[in-house]
């Protein structure tokens, strides 16, 4: 049994069947073909086709289905308004079009369309695009008219929804395939590049950013000690090998480069080798492919092993640090050498303390070595059981070697040394580092000076540190020598005293032995002389020592007179010691420094305080050089003041550098403070660090209001801030170039200034960015003039083109014979050509006139003129026009004589009168008068005032100023209706101003306007 089916159900069924057929395919052409076939079958129409829209007039008929081949249009280039953009708004709203009339000429006549039904195909919205008009489904009847049923239209609309989805899917699939093809292409180009680069010897990497796969060349892996293919070909392989200290900034550079290829991707970083060491690698790379959204797809680069270069760099750095330390240690040494100690024990303790700090050792010992016994003489240590007078067998100490070789020895990381780690010292005390040098007294080993620590040093003792400890040991040796002599002297004195006592006893008791005793006394006296000679010798020794000292040294007695200069001093000044003694040295001091130098010298001697001063001293070659002089008071063993000892360092080079820097700083500052450019420096947070006076002048701020403020918040308009911020960040990036840009800045009163800036990075000594300096030129006026000029040119070109178009069109019509000159149309055409030509001539004349006036190319020919005469001539010129317009002219002739260019003033008057007549109604009147004005105030000049008054329609208040500007009439269309050029008043103003006068207007709307202008009698 067949159930009766409702038309609605039937349609739904059909729709489902067709939709299924369509959706079975993912091939676009197939989908379209099935669609047109099914639709034609269903509607039993003669032609169904799909018209696909393409940009740039490339729309075309994609598929068709026909009842007969003669209706085919697939090859046809359809030109009908129904397929042009003017219908798009309708289609986009999903409107179905069935209308067809004579306006669809091509459609009706060439394609034989008698009935038409158009349904737009609109692809639905996707996450990537909005819905858009893809094409049209068109159903035609060609042999007979047909009325479309509503259900048919509904059916088609619903079917087309299904078709649209199918098209969208098919297009997506096609796009996907294209993408796969592109990736294949990418892979092939990668291979070519690798071949080209691998011969260079550097490591090569090639990163597919989409998949994170990285090709790592064999050289890349070899550089880090890996075999080819030993590591996974992934981005993370590299990331995991980066030194943790380098990783954050490396990732930062990579990130920035991926965002913006103009950020250079070039740096040195450390990577871990297979053996676990760190290796310095220079990495250089670049994103070579981006998709059309700018997303990076592929990045390639090279690795270069730069470990050796980095090592040299590190060594240089280390050397300079060592030198700095050495010079500091020398200063310490100088202090030790010039300090007066009340006992040898204090001296030793100070030496050990200073030494411990210099060598960063916890333990310092001065030892006495006699035969096989090692006695601690003085000790500075945290190890408790080490105390003075303790004795060891020399064989159990590290010093055995020092004593044997008489040379400095150093150890570091003793625990790692196979020979030394079994040594009893290491076994007992775990000393890891050790520096020791012999103390020589009279050329013999007296003992050792040594420092040690249980901490392993991060580097071995340097040659400079060896020098320091040797200098210390030398000083100690000398002091011991001096001390021993002192002991001998004291012993001699004791002996002498004893001898005296014995002598007295003998005198008392055994006079008989007097002679013998006398004789013995002689001997003792002789011994004393020896002791004094020894003392003398110690003085000589001190001088010998001082002469070896590299610094300039001097010694003064308690009166301030110099008693000694060392060899360095004498070599430096090129003088003999005799010439320098007393105050002889003062003649080498620069005359400008002498007074101050002597004053400090004498002052210090009074106060007995250490002093320090700088002065210039003449060197042997006659050049004055800056010295830094340290002076320290000396005391005798009994505590009495003995004078001063001083040493000097040549600091001339340092001074010169300081002076050069100061001069350079002064020059730049003077330049910045006086230049007529805006200068501002910002710190890395964007706060104002410096502004020059001109910037303050332009922005009307005081310095205090600006320094430390956020530049963006204070000076940049809200809408410009994101861009300004971006630029600031760009300039602050390492190795950025200077940037030129044009920005508007706000002044205190909110005025906008246009500034052409140049922004450059500021760097510290290490080359790191520490801010930005911007130098700018205020181009506000230039900018405004440029804009005005552009506007003027645009207006002039329009004003000239308009009459030209009319002239050209009219003449063309006549020449080509479209109208005959005799016909009414022809006569009118000729009249248009004549009128427009006249306007064009007037316009060109006025523009040239104004241009000449403004550029000052016209010299005013000033003569004695009479106002009465000028008015008369002006009236003569416009009387005819006034009569034509039915306007009555009222005159008030003034007999005033003054100096002016008469012709020019007549031009002004006729211009104003013409305007007045043009805007007056018939029957109204225009008034012209002139009068002389003699002001009471002597500062104002006497002048003549002209007045032109009308009863026309007036001028709105807001336009009273602008009407004197070019092409600025009250209503732009006035210019054509009233036959003016729009330049008349501009010309008037120019002529009056060139005479030193003024022009202005007073007006009331609908009541009339009054134009005034003044001309001074004399210039």
């Amino acid at each position, binding site marked *: 049994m067949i159930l009766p089916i409702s038309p609605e159900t039937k349609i739904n069924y059909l729709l489902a069947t067709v939709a299924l057929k369509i959706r079975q395919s993912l091939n676009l052409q197939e989908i379209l073909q099935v669609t047109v076939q099914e639709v034609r079958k269903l509607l039993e129409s003669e032609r169904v086709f799909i018209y696909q829209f393409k940009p740039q007039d490339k729309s075309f008929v994609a598929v068709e289905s026909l009842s007969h081949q003669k209706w085919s249009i697939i090859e046809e280039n359809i030109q009908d308004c129904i397929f042009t953009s003017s219908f798009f708004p309708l289609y986009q709203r999903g409107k179905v079009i069935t209308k067809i009339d004579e*306006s669809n000429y091509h459609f009706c006549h060439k394609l034989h369309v008698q009935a038409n039904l158009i349904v737009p195909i609109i692809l639905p919205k996707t996450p990537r695009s909005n819905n858009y008009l893809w094409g049209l489904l068109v159903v035609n009847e060609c042999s007979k008219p047909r009325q479309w049923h509503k259900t048919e239209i509904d059916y088609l609309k619903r079917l087309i929804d299904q078709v649209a989805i199918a098209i969208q899917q098919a297009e997506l699939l096609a796009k996907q395939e294209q993408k796969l093809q592109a990736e294949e292409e990418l892979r092939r180009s990668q291979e070519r590049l690798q071949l080209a680069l691998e011969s260079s010897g550097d490591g090569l990497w090639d990163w597919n950013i989409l998949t994170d796969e990285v090709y790592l060349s064999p050289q890349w892996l070899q550089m880090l000690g890996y075999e080819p293919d030993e590591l996974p070909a992934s981005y993370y392989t590299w990331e995991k090998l980066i030194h943790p200290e380098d990783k954050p900034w490396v990732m930062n550079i990579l990130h920035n480069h991926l965002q913006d290829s103009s950020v250079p991707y070039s740096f040195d970083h450390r990577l871990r080798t297979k053996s676990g060491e760190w290796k310095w690698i220079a990495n250089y790379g670049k994103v070579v492919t981006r998709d059309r959204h700018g997303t990076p797809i592929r990045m390639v680069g090279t690795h270069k092993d730069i470990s050796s270069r980095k090592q040299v760099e590190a060594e240089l750095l280390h050397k300079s640090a060592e030198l700095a330390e050495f010079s500091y240690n020398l200063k310490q040494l100088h202090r030790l050498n010039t300090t007066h100690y009340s006992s040898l024990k204090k001296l030793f303790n100070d030496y050990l303390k200073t030494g411990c700090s210099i060598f960063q050792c916890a333990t310092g010992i001065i030892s006495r070595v006699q035969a096989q016994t090692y006695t601690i003489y003085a000790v500075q240590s945290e190890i408790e059981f080490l105390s003075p007078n303790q004795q060891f067998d020399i064989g159990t100490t590290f010093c055995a070697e020092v004593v044997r070789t008489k040379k400095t020895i150093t150890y570091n990381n003793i625990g790692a040394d196979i020979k030394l780690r079994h040594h009893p010292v290491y076994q007992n005390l775990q000393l890891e580092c050790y520096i020791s040098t012999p103390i020589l007294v009279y050329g013999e080993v007296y003992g050792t000076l040594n420092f040690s620590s249980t901490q392993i040093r991060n580097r071995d003792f340097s040659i400079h540190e060896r020098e320091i400890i040797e200098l210390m040991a030398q000083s100690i040796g000398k002091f011991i020598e001096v001390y021993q002599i002192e002991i001998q002297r004291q012993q001699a004195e004791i002996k002498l005293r004893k001898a005296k006592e014995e002598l007295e006893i003998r005198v008392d008791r055994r006079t008989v032995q007097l002679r013998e005793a006398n004789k013995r006394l002689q001997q003792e006296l002789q011994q004393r002389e020896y002791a004094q000679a020894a003392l003398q010798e110690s003085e000589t020794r001190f001088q010998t020592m001082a002469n070896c000292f590299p610094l300039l040294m001097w010694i003064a007695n308690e009166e301030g007179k110099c008693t000694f200069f060392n060899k360095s001093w004498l070599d430096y000044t090129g003088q003999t010691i005799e010439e320098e003694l007393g105050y002889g040295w003062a003649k080498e001091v620069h005359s400008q420094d002498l007074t101050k130098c002597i004053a400090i010298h004498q002052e210090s001697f009074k106060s007995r305080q250490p002093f320090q001063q700088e002065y210039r001293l003449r060197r042997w070659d006659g050049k004055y050089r800056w010295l830094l002089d340290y002076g320290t008071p000396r005391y005798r063993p009994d505590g009495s003041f003995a004078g001063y000892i001083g040493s000097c360092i040549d600091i001339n080079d340092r001074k010169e550098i300081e002076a050069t820097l100061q001069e350079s700083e002064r020059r730049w500052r003077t330049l910045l403070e006086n230049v007529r450019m805006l200068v501002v420096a910002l710190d890395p947070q964007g706060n104002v660090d410096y502004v020059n006076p001109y910037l303050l002048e332009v922005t009307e701020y005081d310095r205090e209001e600006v320094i430390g403020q956020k530049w963006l918040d204070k000076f940049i308009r809200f809408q410009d801030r994101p861009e300004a911020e971006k630029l600031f960040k760009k300039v602050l990036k390492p190795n950025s170039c200077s940037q030129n840009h044009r920005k508007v800045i706000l002044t205190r009163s909110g005025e906008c200034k246009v500034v052409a800036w140049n922004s450059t990075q500021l760097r510290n000594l290490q080359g790191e960015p520490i801010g930005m300096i911007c130098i700018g030129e205020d181009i506000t006026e230039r900018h405004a003039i440029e804009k005005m000029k552009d506007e003027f040119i645009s207006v002039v070109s329009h004003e000239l083109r308009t009459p030209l178009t009319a002239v050209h069109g009219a003449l063309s019509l006549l020449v080509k014979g479209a109208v005959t000159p005799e016909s009414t149309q022809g006569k009118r055409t000729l009249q248009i050509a004549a009128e427009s030509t006249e306007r064009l001539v007037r316009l060109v004349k006025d523009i040239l006139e104004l241009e000449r006036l403004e550029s000052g190319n016209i010299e005013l020919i000033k003569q004695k003129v009479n106002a009465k005469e000028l008015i008369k001539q002006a009236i003569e010129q416009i009387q005819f026009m006034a009569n034509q317009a039915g306007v009555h002219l009222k005159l008030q002739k003034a007999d005033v004589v003054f100096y002016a260019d008469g012709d020019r003033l007549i031009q002004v008057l006729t211009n104003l009168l013409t305007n007045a007549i043009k805007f007056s109604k018939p029957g109204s009147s225009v008034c012209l008068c002139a009068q002389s004005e003699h002001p009471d105030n002597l500062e104002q000049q006497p002048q003549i005032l002209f007045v032109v008054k009308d009863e026309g329609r007036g001028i709105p208040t807001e336009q009273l100023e602008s009407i004197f500007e070019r092409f600025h009439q009250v209503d732009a269309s006035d210019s054509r209706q009233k036959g003016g050029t729009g330049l008349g008043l501009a010309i008037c103003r120019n002529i009056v101003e060139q005479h030193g006068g003024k022009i202005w207007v007073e007006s009331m709307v609908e009541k009339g306007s009054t134009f005034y202008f003044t001309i001074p009698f004399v210039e």
Partner: protein
Amino acid sequence: MVQKRILVVDDDDGIREVIQICLEAIAGWEVIPAASGKEALTAAQNRKPDAILLDVMMPDMDGLKTFQQLQTRSQTELIPTIFLTAKSKISEQRKLQFIGVAGVIIKPFEPYNLVDQIKTILNW
């Protein structure tokens, strides 16, 4: 062929008359002249022209504003509109095409070509 009716809008009397004579004499079309945007709107609504020739640079209501007004009214939205402009820069012409006008004709024009140009643009 049916006689076409064209609305010519230009504030310059000379140009407007030349176009009128030209279209009447050469193509035999009926011309409705209008001197401003306002006049054009009224004429377009009352006289139902087949096409509109519209000057861009006019005081008060310029060509663009007039066109936008025409687009908002159902009686006039489908009338094809051609702009007349003295602006010769390609970028400015393209800007006009994007807003959906049927075409652009540049001033100064050749009267004979004017008719052909209009026909080409409108597929007549």
